[in-house]
């Protein structure tokens, strides 16, 4: 008898799973949560999750040169400076700017967010944009390779020189996609939760080279890992992909339009370039690696 009961339960549970998975097309209808509304004029219509305050999220920890000393409140570091400038444009300063921390992955989840916007070098991709919303780009970066002296990646001038290199990168980033899709090495790359893992693997020679965005690469080679250097970068002109970093919002957050206006003001006023100059290393002179 118990067996029959559990059979009934199993059948019913199966029906539930089918009901959940089946018919993807039938209810696209409720998904029409007014995508047009995001285009609403900025004006005073810029609601934040806590009235009178703006809540900004970044990584935990946040890394240099994006946020210096893991203290975004100070406004030191490129992203900290950009975030505070955006907040100021929207009319929030001092204690009305609240910082929270999320992991990289955590923020790319569906549903409500505990921040107004999040910045930790999120590349804008169409897949991500289906779940969350992005602002216009506040920085564009090339992918770059960091390796220790004497590694298999040293002296590479084209992707063909890199196929036998063991790569490492942070999981879930466009850097890892770049390794798999553009470089396509013969051995599978290693992936880590964060760049700290990738850097440890590089130091321990578990990987020959790691792929990160160019400013991070320059910082790692100059400050963090002795004996490492930036082997090269992959600009779009060389067949690589240039990553546009955007501020990340809950899907269809009306605040996006306001922030875009603020970013445009900062860009036109030259502040974005000034922040880049102040906090990011000069990337002129990094060799370009040809793709294909």
């Amino acid at each position, binding site marked *: 008898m118990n067996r029959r009961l559990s059979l*009934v339960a199993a059948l*019913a549970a199966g029906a539930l799973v089918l009901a*959940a998975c089946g018919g993807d097309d039938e209810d696209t209808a409720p998904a029409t949560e007014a995508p047009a509304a995001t285009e609403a004029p900025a004006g005073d219509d810029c609601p934040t999750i806590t009235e009178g305050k703006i809540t900004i999220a970044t990584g935990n920890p946040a890394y240099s040169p994006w946020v210096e000393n893991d203290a975004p409140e100070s406004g030191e570091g490129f992203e900290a400076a950009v975030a505070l400038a955006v907040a100021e444009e929207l009319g929030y300063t001092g204690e009305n700017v609240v910082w929270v921390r999320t992991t990289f992955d955590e923020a790319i*989840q569906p*549903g409500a967010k505990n921040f107004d916007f999040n910045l930790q070098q999120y590349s804008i991709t169409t897949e991500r944009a*289906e779940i969350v919303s992005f602002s216009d780009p506040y920085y564009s970066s090339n992918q770059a390779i960091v390796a220790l002296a004497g590694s298999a990646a040293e002296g590479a001038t084209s992707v063909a020189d890199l196929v036998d290199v063991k790569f490492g990168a942070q999981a*879930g980033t466009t850097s890892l996609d770049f390794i798999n899709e553009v470089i396509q090495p013969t051995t599978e790359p290693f992936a880590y939760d964060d760049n700290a893992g990738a850097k*440890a693997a590089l130091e*321990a*020679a578990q990987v020959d080279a790691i792929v990160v965005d160019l400013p991070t690469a320059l910082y790692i080679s100059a400050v963090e890992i002795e004996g490492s250097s930036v082997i090269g970068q992959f600009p779009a002109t060389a067949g690589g992909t240039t990553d546009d970093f955007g501020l990340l919002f809950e899907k269809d957050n009306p605040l996006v339009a306001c922030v875009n206006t603020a970013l445009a003001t900062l860009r036109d006023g030259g502040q974005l370039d000034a922040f880049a100059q102040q906090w990011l290393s000069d990337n002129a002179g990094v060799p370009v690696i040809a793709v294909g």
Partner: protein
Amino acid sequence: MNATVPGMSDLPGTDASGLTRRQIFERRQRRRSIVVAALSTTVVIAAIVILVPMTPGWYRVRRSFFNGETFAETFPRLLDAFVLDLKIFAWCAPFILLWGLLLALARGVRTPALFPLRLFATAYTDVFRGVPVILTILLVGFGVPGLGLSRPWNSPYLWGSVALVLAYSAYVAEVFRAGIESVHESQRAAARSLGLSSGRTMRHVVLPQAIRRVVPPLMNDMVSLQKDVALISLIGPIEVLRQAGIDKSKFANFTPYLGAALLFILLTIPETRLVDHLQNRQRRRTGATAIR
């Protein structure tokens, strides 16, 4: 069967099919409980199927957790990555069982001169059972290769596996110890009085009984190991959990996690059934009657 089951009041003794009133009553009870079980299951499932989609975020959750397209696209990759999990499991499990058994034996040593051995085994199980597996993996997986070993001795596969063996052998040792201690003292006494040495008593009398008794809890640990193998991804290798995480970030969709969960379940369910089968066979062989 008989279509005309009369009401009980009409029945003096047995009906046409030769069933007693008791049997008819029991059959009716049985049918009734099946109907009730089916009904209540249907109601619960229906409530879930109807109420869950009524939640405001359902269409988003559905799009990001039950996305057929993403599933179809990512599942083959997950399957590939899962092979690595199986490999790691396959080469770790024998070492764990062996090392765990040795530890259990060391803990049971009764010779005064070998007390340090006993002390070591006790301390070992205390430490590795107390430290979360994930920490052991991170410490061993990043720490040891950092010593500057050269390839292949700095491989994360190697040190990740070592960490799993260290951690799981502590659990397994306790299971073996419980089995050894569950063998009645009279068994040892009988063996010794027959002239067996203490070592041979352990080998031929105690262990065969002990191991048989601990097969179910051991399998429990093995199923648990099967899942914890995924933690090796933290130190680089891309196994199924990491692959799912990468695809999750890439598609900004959680369906790959569902695919990974499915793979683990598909593996552990047959394992569990196998243990049930072994148990039943053993019970039949040892002649004990199951009390129902």
